[in-house]
């Protein structure tokens, strides 16, 4: 009960921020009912997906300060679990999604245990490596369709199928992921004020100090990594039902991992709104750039250059991202 109350308690946020957040939530709620293009709707769904990825990343990467560049492997585990269970045994989304979380979290414990013996850049590189290795395994694993991937054929089902999450129109997907989005925010709001949330912030600042306060640093990191993993895996499962065609190259590539980290880093790592702000900037930018440059051959990889520039600017100018700038400006106004 207390946990639920804390999840809904935003009293430490500024009133202005809450008003803006409320208004935006209202716009999001009625967005599909407005005369918007299918492209805009699809972009919004991507925005929710990457906001959630970013929120997950934000727990371990933002509050915990452990730069994780291997989140795509958990997108893959979630997506493949849901796809395989649905295609082979007709197990619906709401059952396969928790199974995916279970598998992803188990995997996160297995690799998290040795991984968190590493620090800083070594940790980041190791996360990339594990993610790529898993992707390579999936690419040759026939059971998972190998490099061709898997396809969920909607013809077999009668959409709208709420149990299997098979819809013909994007508006259904929109509201499902919007619901996850709201739950994701509430969970993150609870998490940051929980015992683990506080302990993690102490760990980020100084591990020796954290240990002296009775915090099992290694275990706290592994636990948080599992929470981040659960976020990503849930959305991965959703992604499978939404996209319907999943292949290792698309779902588990390094680009995805970097993009996930970028959401929180650009918006503000270690802040509640950071991942949402980051996704709100990056996803439309990415979608429309792709649309705009789509015809021009040779410019296909330009978004990667964009990410590189963003990473460099953030690390040089404001490690706490857009939210860091907002807070800095506010503090200056106060004094």
């Amino acid at each position: 009960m207390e946990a639920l109350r804390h999840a809904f308690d935003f009293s430490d946020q500024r009133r202005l921020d809450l008003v803006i957040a409320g208004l935006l939530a209202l716009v999001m709620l009625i967005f599909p009912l407005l005369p918007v293009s299918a492209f805009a709707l699809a972009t919004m769904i991507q925005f929710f997906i990457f906001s959630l990825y970013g929120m997950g990343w934000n727990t371990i990467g933002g509050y915990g300060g452990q730069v994780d560049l291997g989140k795509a492997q958990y997108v893959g585990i979630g997506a493949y679990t849901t796809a395989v269970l649905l295609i082979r045994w007709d197990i619906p989304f709401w059952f396969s999604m928790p199974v995916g979380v279970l598998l992803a979290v188990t995997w996160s414990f297995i690799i998290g245990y040795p991984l968190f013996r590493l620090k800083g850049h070594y940790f980041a590189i190791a996360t990339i490596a594990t993610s790529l290795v898993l992707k390579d395994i999936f690419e040759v694993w026939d059971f998972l369709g190998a490099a061709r991937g898997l396809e969920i054929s909607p013809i077999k089902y009668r959409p709208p199928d709420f149990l299997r999450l098979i819809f013909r129109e994007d508006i259904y997907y929109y509201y499902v992921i919007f619901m996850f989005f709201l739950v994701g925010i509430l969970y993150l709001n609870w998490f940051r004020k929980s015992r683990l949330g506080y302990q993690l912030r102490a760990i980020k600042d100084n591990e020796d100090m954290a240990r002296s306060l009775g915090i099992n640093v290694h275990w706290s990191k592994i636990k948080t990594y599992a929470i981040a993993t659960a976020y990503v895996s849930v959305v991965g499962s959703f992604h499978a039902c939404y996209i319907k065609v999943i292949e290792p190259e698309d779902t588990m590539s390094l680009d995805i991992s970097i993009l996930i980290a970028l959401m929180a880093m650009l918006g503000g790592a270690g802040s509640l709104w950071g991942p949402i702000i980051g996704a709100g900037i990056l996803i439309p930018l990415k979608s429309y750039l792709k649309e705009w440059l789509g015809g021009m051959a040779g410019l296909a990889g330009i978004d990667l250059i964009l990410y590189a520039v963003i990473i460099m600017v953030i690390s040089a100018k404001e490690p706490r991202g857009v939210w860091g700038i907002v807070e800095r400006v506010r503090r200056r106004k106060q004094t």
Partner: protein
Amino acid sequence: MALLEVDNLVKDFGGLRANHKISFRLAPDELLGLIGPNGAGKTTLFNCIAGKYPVTSGRIVFDGDDITPLNAHEVARRGIARTFQVYTAAGDLTVRENVMVGCFMRTPSRRAAREQADAILADLNLSAAASSFVSELPVAAQKKVTMATALGTRPKLLLLDEVAAGLNPGEIEDIMASIRHIHHQMGVAVILIEHVMELVMRTSDRLIVLDSGRKIAEGLPADIARNEQVIKAYLGERYVQGHGRERS
């Protein structure tokens, strides 16, 4: 029964012996001062007791249990809290939140942690700063925040590593009062590493002197101040001339 018993503790760093067969006992109601020149092995001794460093040989018994093989966080849970010489507290947490991190060791409840933190802050006269970020406070207050955070874990023994370093005389008085309060009112045993002689001599019940990793003296502050070996190794003639008259 002794609260802490250190028995023939040896700590080597490669070829360097930082602690050489150190033994001492600490009573549950004692305030022990640990002094000695730079590099004498005082902080190393703290790090060994607190489980940050594994010891090379020897035994540390706390509250009747052998804690020698325990990790830092396990030692903390047994009831030994500490502060660090180089001041550290989480920068993006407020003073209250910092202390709450300490309190969270004993309770998972946010409300309980908050209440306990507020009580400790009130005890150390830090209530006014509760909502400030630690980095915004003067150094003296920051040091008190680290003490408050350590107290959040409700320790039986508190290891204070140079809390008075870099403070002015007024601030030293204030921190001395806090240490006495922690010791007498809160009933926490304290070991104090300190270079500010005023503070150690006036606050400690007993002193231990380290030099080059060895314990060279142990006794009441007044006796230590007259100990030839200690004067040679650490205190220097000037201190004795300055304070000898008023003590005798």
